């Protein structure tokens, strides 16, 4: 698996989803949907930083930016491109 969306989605499902029957998509609301709470957001941020070797500043790692897999990927790609 090397598609970033799938990697992030799998991580969210494995780590944060209580109900194994719940289906998540790239657009499912993670923060506003109560799947990832504000405390757990810190571990999600840490996962992204460690996996993609980037540093996400706190003012960009907002609940809005982390609300869906799609928005997360957009943010991560922005910081990966800044790196290169």
């Amino acid at each position, binding site marked *: 698996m090397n598609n970033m969306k799938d990697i992030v989605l799998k991580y969210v499902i494995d*780590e944060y989803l*209580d*109900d*194994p*029957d*719940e289906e998540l998509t790239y657009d499912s*609301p*993670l*923060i*506003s*949907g*109560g*799947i*990832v*709470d*504000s*405390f*757990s957001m*810190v*571990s999600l941020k*840490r*996962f992204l*930083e*460690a996996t993609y070797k980037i540093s996400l500043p706190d003012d960009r790692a907002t*609940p*809005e930016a982390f*609300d869906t897999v799609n928005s997360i990927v957009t943010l991560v790609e922005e910081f990966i491109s800044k790196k290169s």
Partner: protein
Amino acid sequence: MSNIGSYEERVKNFEWSIAEKELGYEPGGDINIGWYCTDRICQMGKASKMAILWEGLGGVEKKYTYNDLRLRTNTMASFLIGLGVNQGDRVCLFMDKVPELYIGVLSVLKMGAVAQPLFSAFGDESLFIRLENAGTSAIITQRKHVGKVRQILDKLPGLKNIIIIDHDGKKELKERETVFAMDSAVQVEHFDVAKTKAESPSVLHYTSGTTGQPKGVKHVHYSLISQYLTTKWVLDMQEDDIYWCTADPGWVTGTSYGIIGGFATGATNCILDTGFSAESWYRFIQKYKVTMWYSAPTAIRSLMKAGDELVKQFDLSSLRHLASVGEPLNAEAVIWSEKVFGKAFHDTYWQTETGSMMIVNVPGLKIKPGSMGKPFPGITATVLDENTYEPVSGPNKPGLIAFRPGWPAMMRTYWNNEETYQKKFKNGWYLSGDKAFLDQDNYFWFIGRDDDVINTGGHLVSPFEVESALLEHEAVAESAVVAKPDEVNMEVVKAFVVLNEGFEPGDMLELQIMNFIRKKLSPLAMPQEIEYLDKLPKTRSGKIMRRLLHAKEWGHDIGDVSTLEDD
């Protein structure tokens, strides 16, 4: 005109019998919180009044009148009795903020059992510790959380019934599991409410201390008296109020004021069962025309971070009165709320153990931004010298916040731990564990905890509990946990760890340890940062000097280090 009127006059002429009379309670008679929050409101001619306006993910709505509440609590209470749940048994409610949680608590109270609400984000170990200590006989939960219960079931032979409220039939039920569908069940019109008395146990909430496991705080039905009166006088609950208490009933605010205070005063209670976002909160206030809003400093600071422009996109003119609880409300937040909402948040101070508000900012009393306010009428509060346990003389002297016992909602004991309960009292004062000073006008100003307990987002986390759990991770040889300052949550958990041989420090290991704690205990207990050390600072007798690590995090002077172990 506010319900309390003149604070000074109320202090002068105060008796708890004011609330007893309003509630029609005769000392020595029956008092059942479940009945007061449902049947009584119906008997007052408000059966068709809206009791709950609930919204879940995707804008799904549910609405319940007070008559619906009466019928559903009758039905759920009857169901529990049918399962063999007896008066005095502990029934855990382990759910998100769904209507069944609120109605479930009232149902348990109505049939005379003890309601034990637990935060649904707790991991299996946190859940096990609390269920085992309470000797819980039944748990009401959702399909999404039942997996955590199944993991610990073998260790809990006394847990006889697991009630799932949203079973869809797709998977088979397992051992001890049963289904209760609240809305589609045949509603029970008549139910014999348990004839509980003032001292009958009602609610069991767990709270963390510096050492030892979490303690079960036992409350009784008489707590209603001060929960009712503080809701009326501090939250200023009026006949037509649309009330939103944002707290989760897994914590004491969500029970004392998110359930008991709101329903006992016959208010319309709004519940939002989704994650936090500033936009969704403002939209919720606008949609339901919330008038009384009781929230927490962490949430208020998060709203501040979202900016003033966002506020302007919503019509929040329905807001009439705002209050806050959880940790000290900083002056900036009070000033900001006045600027953007046209109303100041009124800070309130109390604890799981006190059961109801103790030091408050009531309507009409001048707010000193950043101050905790003044004692609620009928509450004797002081600041004690830390050595003599006598009240400090004169203003601006720091000491321990203490109360004279005797208010109705005071905890009656720690469950199975009377010894620790007794240690909470000195010279006839109940010691809160918090420090403050009094100013020249007798306003209280919060300083901090007098122990190592971490207050994160208004919830207490025991460093001992996190350290113990950390040691269960294969990579961790030793650990020390302290509070770290945080702009939004006031404090967050930070862990210092020494690794076992064969493990290398690194980002992925840090993440693995963080997630290990999050799943085992809760997201609140998860260290937000882990620092690797070669060794922990210890006294010569081998005790970890947590104080040193704490001082380093807060930039404080490290003080006396003469007992520090040499290299």
